[in-house]
């Protein structure tokens, strides 16, 4: 196969990102050295000394050290993609890193070493995934299918495409996450049926790496061939989508979609963070809201939430120094009370999606759960109650979207002529008319690609340009919708006012991205369309980002792993040294010496390491031995008024 034919599928998530590839045997997740498919969507960017390029760490390492580097560790960047300052007002209070308004209603992340756009931050995550795929496949990867929440608007989709470009990837298709999940579900179903008919019995797991329902569970007369209707309930780290689909003869047709791009697991964590902050304030009179504290509380809340999915209660203990402690037990029912409103909001969106598709809950043959947040028992219970049936839980909710993206990548490279995805546009598209009202041209839930044409004319004699303001959304007034920008039709032939007949074509492509063209019918002349986005990056900015993005082309897998591990060793030792300087006085002298010794030993071993597996083990062991120091750092972070903790070395 030609390298140009390799298209990987990428799930660029709020919390985790994954990359998958489909070969002849089916789609599979590409995992890291430790067998984990997930890459935390966390990026740490630290300025280097002198003029050296900044040090960039992506994934687990960046996540582990987030508390020590609150201002230079970026997480949940997906929530900022394609958004403006006004959109994220509510968000800001929960971010440990700083954001500032950029040009044209964009946001920039402000880091100690400079400002970055959300597209650039996402590109670092995509690049790490790309490298992972290249190591696995042993050849360069230049093309990808990237998934986005179905409810993403034009600006958010464009931003995702730019991020891909900046990571050296041609984004051949933007696919909606729930749709990708349905695709993986369909393939899994087909594999299951094929295996069953071949062996005459049910299989526990398909070759596609999808773990399928065990014997006797959820058996229904449904297969790839028999038409059926499914609902995909996708509750991820930051976004919620519900899509209904008809699966018939290999065609996956989305009937409707609804969602909220700011509703997900992050919000459940925040409910816990807010509770803890309030109680600490009430009980101890302490305000724990520094960037580092936000980061530490986030981690804590996430752990509590995950525990409560499997246990009836979880214990929170915070050592706030000077004998002040905060501790309490949080029971599952209490947590459910905190998030009940958010869960009900998802069900109202389910009702809207069903209404738009002219379906009743009972018309749904299967409810597929996607996204880590669907592990929460309350979510499962309420979804089951709403649809009147137990959801289908045989798929791994973390991996199904990436697997589906890989399937779509295989379709796009021509390997599955029997399959087709027909998606819809989540938002209505319209133009602003006199008085600021919106004239809708394409209604939400219209199958894409789709097209609308509209006739315009001029007002004054000799007028050669017409301006259109294009918006996306359901509201009556343009000001309440999302602006896609001004489209200026230029080079019209000069004629008396009202005479030109300008036909404007609005074409939504299969990515859900708008293309506008215009023609003056009397002269047959094509008008040029100049777009001034009200939002987002200009072409020059996109080019700059793409140019500046560091592109590695590493082929030697061993060499690459060595570089990665050595970087991690550097990073860990540097972090530990910094932490030791700040908080070493809180350890016993023996503990301090022990850590010093460990640092030297690790350094020495790393400098002449031949056995990379052994180096990896030592690195992990080093992490365990410095755990107490890390705990102290977290505690201090919680009580420090700012992210500059009291420095004993200064006194």
């Amino acid at each position, binding site marked *: 196969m030609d390298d140009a034919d390799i298209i990987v599928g990428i799930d660029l998530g709020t919390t985790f990102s994954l990359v998958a590839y489909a070969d002849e045997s089916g789609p599979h997740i590409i995992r890291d050295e430790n067998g984990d498919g997930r890459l935390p969507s966390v990026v740490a960017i630290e300025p280097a000394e002198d003029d050296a390029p900044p040090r960039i760490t992506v994934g687990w390492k960046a996540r582990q050290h987030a508390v020590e580097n609150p201002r230079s560790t970026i997480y949940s960047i997906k929530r900022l993609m394609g958004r403006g300052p006004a959109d994220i007002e509510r968000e800001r209070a929960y971010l440990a890193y700083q954001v500032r308004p950029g040009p044209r209603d964009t946001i920039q992340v402000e880091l100690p070493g400079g400002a970055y756009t959300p597209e650039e931050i996402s590109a670092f995550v995509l690049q790490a995934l790309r490298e992972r795929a290249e190591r696995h496949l042993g050849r360069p990867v230049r093309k990808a299918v990237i998934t986005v929440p179905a409810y993403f608007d034009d600006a958010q989709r464009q931003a995702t495409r730019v991020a891909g470009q900046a990571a050296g990837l041609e984004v051949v298709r933007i696919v909606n996450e729930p749709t990708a999940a349905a695709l993986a579900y369909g393939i899994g179903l087909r594999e299951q049926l094929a295996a069953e008919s071949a062996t005459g019995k049910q299989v526990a797991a398909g070759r596609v790496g999808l773990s399928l329902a065990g014997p006797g569970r959820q058996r229904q007369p449904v297969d790839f061939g028999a038409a059926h209707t499914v609902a995909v309930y996708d509750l991820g780290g930051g976004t919620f989508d519900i899509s209904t689909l008809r699966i018939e003869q290999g065609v996956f047709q989305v009937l409707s979609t609804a969602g909220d791009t700011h509703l997900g697991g992050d919000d459940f964590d925040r409910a816990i963070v807010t509770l803890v902050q309030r109680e600490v304030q009430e009980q101890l009179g302490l305000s724990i809201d520094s960037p580092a504290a936000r980061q530490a509380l986030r981690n804590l809340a996430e752990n509590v939430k995950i525990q409560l999915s499997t246990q009836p209660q979880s214990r929170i203990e915070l050592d706030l120094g000077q004998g002040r402690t905060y501790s309490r037990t949080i029971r599952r029912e209490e947590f459910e009370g905190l998030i009940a409103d958010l869960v009900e909001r998802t069900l109202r969106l389910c009702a809207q999606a069903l209404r738009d598709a002219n379906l009743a809950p009972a018309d749904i043959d299967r409810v597929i759960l996607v996204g880590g947040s669907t592990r929460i028992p309350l979510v499962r219970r309420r979804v089951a109650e709403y649809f009147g049936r137990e959801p289908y839980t045989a798929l791994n909710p973390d991996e199904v979207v990436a697997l589906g993206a890989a399937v779509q990548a295989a379709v*796009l490279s021509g390997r599955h002529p*029997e399959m*087709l*995805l027909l998606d819809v546009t989540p938002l209505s598209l319209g133009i602003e008319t006199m008085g600021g009202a919106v004239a809708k041209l394409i209604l939400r839930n219209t199958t*894409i690609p789709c*097209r609308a044409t509209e006739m315009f004319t001029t007002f004054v004699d000799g007028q050669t340009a017409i301006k259109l303001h294009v918006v996306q959304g359901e509201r009556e007034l343009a000001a309440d919708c999302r602006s896609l920008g001004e489209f200026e039709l230029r080079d019209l032939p000069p004629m008396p006012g009202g005479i030109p007949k300008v036909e404007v074509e609005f*074409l*939504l492509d*299969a990515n859900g991205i708008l293309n506008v063209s215009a023609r003056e019918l009397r002269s047959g002349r094509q008008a040029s369309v100049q777009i001034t986005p009200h939002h987002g990056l200009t072409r020059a900015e996109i080019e700059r980002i793409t140019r500046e993005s560091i592109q590695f082309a590493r082929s030697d897998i061993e060499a690459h792993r060595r570089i990665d591990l050595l970087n991690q060793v550097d990073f860990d030792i540097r972090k530990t040294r910094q932490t030791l300087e700040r908080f070493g006085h809180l350890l016993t002298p023996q503990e301090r010496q022990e850590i010093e010794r460990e640092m030297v030993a690790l350094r020495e071993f790393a400098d002449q390491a031949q056995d990379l597996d052994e180096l990896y083990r030592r690195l992990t062991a080093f992490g365990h031995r410095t755990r107490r120091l890390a705990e102290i750092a977290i505690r201090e972070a919680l009580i420090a008024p700012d992210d500059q903790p009291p420095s004993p070395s200064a006194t």
Partner: protein
Amino acid sequence: MDSPLFCEGCGRLYPAEGYNYFDLFGLPPRYDLDTATLRQKYLETSRAIHPDHHGQRPEAALMSLRASARLNEAYRVLADPMLRAEYLLELFGGSSAAQDRSVGPDVLTQTLALREELEEARQMQLETRLADLRCQIETLCEQTESAVQELARRLPGDETLRRQLRQQLNALRYYQKLRENL
């Protein structure tokens, strides 16, 4: 009849311009159609012409994008009985809703009266009255839909028939708006 959009033998695409919605599915321009057949043709043709299967060559990609967009619109219209009647009426030379907004003699007064009654019942929270009105509006919609169907089956017909169909379709819009308000 087959779709004119692609060659079944070699998979080559042809532009969609110049064909009406019925042509795209290889169906005769008639109100009565078998929805299962329409759907079958839609799925087959979509699979054959969709940009996902024609992304390799740029000129094919654009043609496939336009053809797909047109096919999707055609399916949306033909699959919906009322939109189908509307489309067929214009295909046979009837006026569009923009050209002729007239309705039958009692439609406007009736709609206004119903709207007022609805408002009143809502304000005074007369639940049984509301349910009754809801029922009336549903019945009106259904009756008008049957009238549309009845007339559309007789298309192309004469000028009078087409005018009657236009007016029934216009009336249906008023009733549908009322129903949306419920």
